[in-house]
């Protein structure tokens, strides 16, 4: 399966192929879940990656949308 991933916060800088508008395309085995994507990208718990699909924050075992877009944010607080 393929997902279109956009990275935000301080994450994008780690991926030279990342385009601010289009993000990056990631291929994963069929049936991959959110945790697989984070692992694939090497985003650890310390970086507090937050995966948003369709305007909702996903759980680690939520399925990913094949050919769909995913935003990866970082946990933030309001100021």
């Amino acid at each position, binding site marked *: 399966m393929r997902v279109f991933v956009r990275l*935000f*916060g*301080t994450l*994008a800088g780690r991926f030279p192929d990342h385009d*601010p*508008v289009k993000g990056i395309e990631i291929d994963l085995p069929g049936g991959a879940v959110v945790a697989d994507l984070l692992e694939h990208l090497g985003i650890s718990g*310390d*970086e*507090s990656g*937050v995966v*948003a699909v369709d*305007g*909702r*924050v996903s*759980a680690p075992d939520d399925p990913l949308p094949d050919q769909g877009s995913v*935003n990866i*944010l*970082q*946990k*933030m*607080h*309001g*100021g």
Partner: protein
Amino acid sequence: MKFLRVDMKTKTVKTEDVPPAYRGLGGRGLTSILVNDEVPPGCDPLGPENRMVFAPGLLTGTALVNTSRISIGAKSPLTGGIKESNVGGTVPAALGKLGITAVVVEGQAPEGELYVLRIDARGEAALEAANECKGMRTYALVEKLLGTYGEKNGVLCIGPAGEFLMSSASIQSSDADGRPCRAAGRGGLGAVMGSKGLKALVVDLTGKSPDALADPEAFKEQAKAFAEILRKNPFTGQMMPALGTAGLVSAVNSLGAFPSYNATQGTLEGWEKVSGEALAQMIQDRGGKTSHMGCTQCILHCSNDFVDEKGGFVTSSLEYETIWSMGGMTGIVDLDAIARLDRLADDIGLDTMNTGVALAVAMDAGYRPFGDAEAALEMMEEIGRGTDMGKILGNGPAAVGKHFNHHRVPVVKNQSIAAYDPRGMQGNGVTYATSPMGADHTAGNLVGQYLGRALDPLSPEGQVEASRNAQIAMAALDCTGICLLAGTVLGNPKVLDVFLKLIAAKTGEDIDAKGWGDMGIRVLKAERAFNRNAGFTSRDDRLPEFFREEPLPPHNKTFLVPDEELDSIFDF
């Protein structure tokens, strides 16, 4: 530990020891409890009976990082209730270093007279005539005042909006570089200052007589530990210096809760162009500063210096809430225009949030089209000149809504909401509705919990409890003088423990987690009491009707938390 009592009528300043009833209080605790004790709740907020209290936090003036914050309190001309507005810069730490617990301003100067309150390096204060500063915008004013009194001074001041007694008037605070770019924006306290005839406070930054610490060794040790925690935390240590609060643009748009086009959409079309990431890139390409120390002793550096295409300084700091109010709500998807609007707001002395939302309501009512940056800049200039329309705009969204008979006015107690839509983040709606301050995100913001999946933002379940806990924690935090961005780490009980040890080492009185909560509750109770006596009822703890009637795309939800639940929030 002293109060400076400033009487604008007699033009005298008296110094008194902090009365026993107020010992151990600081910041919002002190302003709210003192306002509740001394200000007649029914008084005219712009009349002589209102009092203004400037109180640095309990830990402000100590060596602890990120504590140059001050609470300014009074009865608000915007909400008609009690107000605490918090700001950083250099004056808060300077007052703390002079051992000044609060400056209380009462009475009124005769009409047409304007004064500067000067506080020197020994903590001696006097009112000095400043009629030549009449009508001055804040950047020119601060330059003039620093020219007169010397660079090593900090300034709290008002611009034309404050002199015009507008309900969105802010009090601007000079930053570490001597620019009046930090704002006690909320609640129209600039108008209260204007009504007193007080144009500015000028405080010497070299004072060296802070209150003695009860246990200096313990304080030093815990202060070091706390700074280390801030440096290691990914949010405070990395994200804040990289993106500042503007990093929230992506997060809140990604969740569909970014009120756009006067709260008719939950995502702003083209938000990527005004995101924190885009902002940082633009500033970097142009040679500005992506991170900057806004307030004395800050190690987070959430601030930035926005520069134009030629590298010339435009404004500091472009923050999340302003990008939202001046950009999202107005549909102006252009960082250069937003930066100019922010600069104008600082210069005229206006709350960027209340003002941006006022412009958005005018646009929504058909006065000018959404997305028209030139029209927005013109409207700001009208406010600055105090034209008839400018006065309506400068009195905030509720005044604009009334003028145009427009129903969609996103305010509570007349104060604009912030950059989290109550339909997309239901708990923030609870905070807006019930905070004694009116709609105020800093009173109890749950965005971190939503991003961390601790709570479903779209469901009414659990929101009242989460908002209550956040409001109590914030009321306590606002007493201490810690910047709220640094304060985000206190959600971890172990870190809170370090922080409580710091308070104990300052005051000499042990405080545990329960005592911390009790402090917050005490503050909220005083604020609620003031508002009740000023005539507020549970009907004032409501969002405007359209939030229950008009679903917000993309989730197409309305605000779902029942009124009875809202009314139970402060059943302490």
